[in-house]
């Protein structure tokens, strides 16, 4: 095993931008003065999630859902392995991490959708009273899953003796040479950023 490139640039930039945008949206959620910042941050979350969903089909090997999403049984088996101190190493996401990723993507989309409905309730009469509650519940659930995700990253880093946080910056993890991705697809980053900006602007109108 050696250090190989597994995460392309859109995965890495998207990850940290998503974390930052969600944190910003959470921190500005109580303020009316900062309402536009909140909505732009939320719109950025939605844009990144939509890009990631597409990237899960057309991205590089370890970015594809087919490459890392596993059945519940595989998640349980993986966690048992971690508990037994015999964790099965994955070049890309481990099965438990994959579960957190899917949950965060779904919650990001639903939180954004209910947020938009709340934001535009006054003129459209969409029933925002209900969506306001839903939006808050979904956002809290997303924060909880993000917390679990961070805890999982710490446990995974210790279990596999590799710094998974650093890997999300460098894109490099332990793996067989044949498991590496050929290129980091830097060209797709402007597409990600442009798309996220368009989504943020459009949703905040």
């Amino acid at each position, binding site marked *: 095993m050696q250090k190989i490139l597994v995460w392309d640039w859109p995965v890495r930039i998207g990850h940290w931008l998503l974390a930052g945008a969600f944190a910003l949206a959470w921190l500005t959620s109580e303020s009316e003065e900062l309402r536009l910042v909140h909505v732009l941050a939320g719109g950025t979350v939605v844009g990144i999630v939509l890009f990631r969903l597409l990237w899960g089909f057309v991205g590089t090997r370890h970015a594809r859902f087919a490459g890392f999403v596993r059945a519940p049984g595989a998640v349980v088996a993986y966690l048992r392995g971690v508990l037994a101190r015999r964790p099965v190493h994955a070049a890309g996401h481990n099965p438990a991490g994959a579960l957190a990723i899917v949950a965060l993507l779904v919650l990001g989309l639903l939180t954004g959708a209910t947020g938009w409905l709340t*934001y535009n309730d006054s003129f459209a009469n969409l029933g925002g*009273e209900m969506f306001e509650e839903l939006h808050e519940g979904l956002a809290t659930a997303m924060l909880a899953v993000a917390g679990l995700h961070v805890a999982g990253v710490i446990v995974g880093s210790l279990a596999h003796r590799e710094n998974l946080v650093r890997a999300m910056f460098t894109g490099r993890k332990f793996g067989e040479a044949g498991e590496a991705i050929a290129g980091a697809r830097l060209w797709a980053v402007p597409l990600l950023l442009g798309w996220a900006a368009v989504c943020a602007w459009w949703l905040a109108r």
Partner: protein
Amino acid sequence: MKHATLAILATLCAAAAQAATPAELLDGYRAEAARQSAGFQPSAQRGAEFFQHRFGASAKMPSCASCHTDNPAQPGRHVVTDKAIKPLAPAANAGRFTDPAKVEKWFRRNCTEVVGRECSAAEKADFVAFLLGGR
């Protein structure tokens, strides 16, 4: 599945039990204020002054009226986002001041930002009295 259904039913019942009329809400704040200051009576006049008062804790939204306009029976407009806000007065918007948890949530948020602190029970009682009295 059965447990989930029961949980949802329990939540709905709890929500239904919490529903109140604006008058009941006002009475709750009046009673709370009276415990802190004997003989307290809500005043729509004080509520109106509070509604118009420029607290200055927020430069963009110095008073309640900044967004809700001088007439709470009219729709408001968010000074930052320019989004419409439904009328605050129950006479113009039947859903207002019927959910105690929601009322507390928005008093907490908006008082903290506009007044610069949490509002007292007396201020809330005056505020609701003003909104119920209309103009």
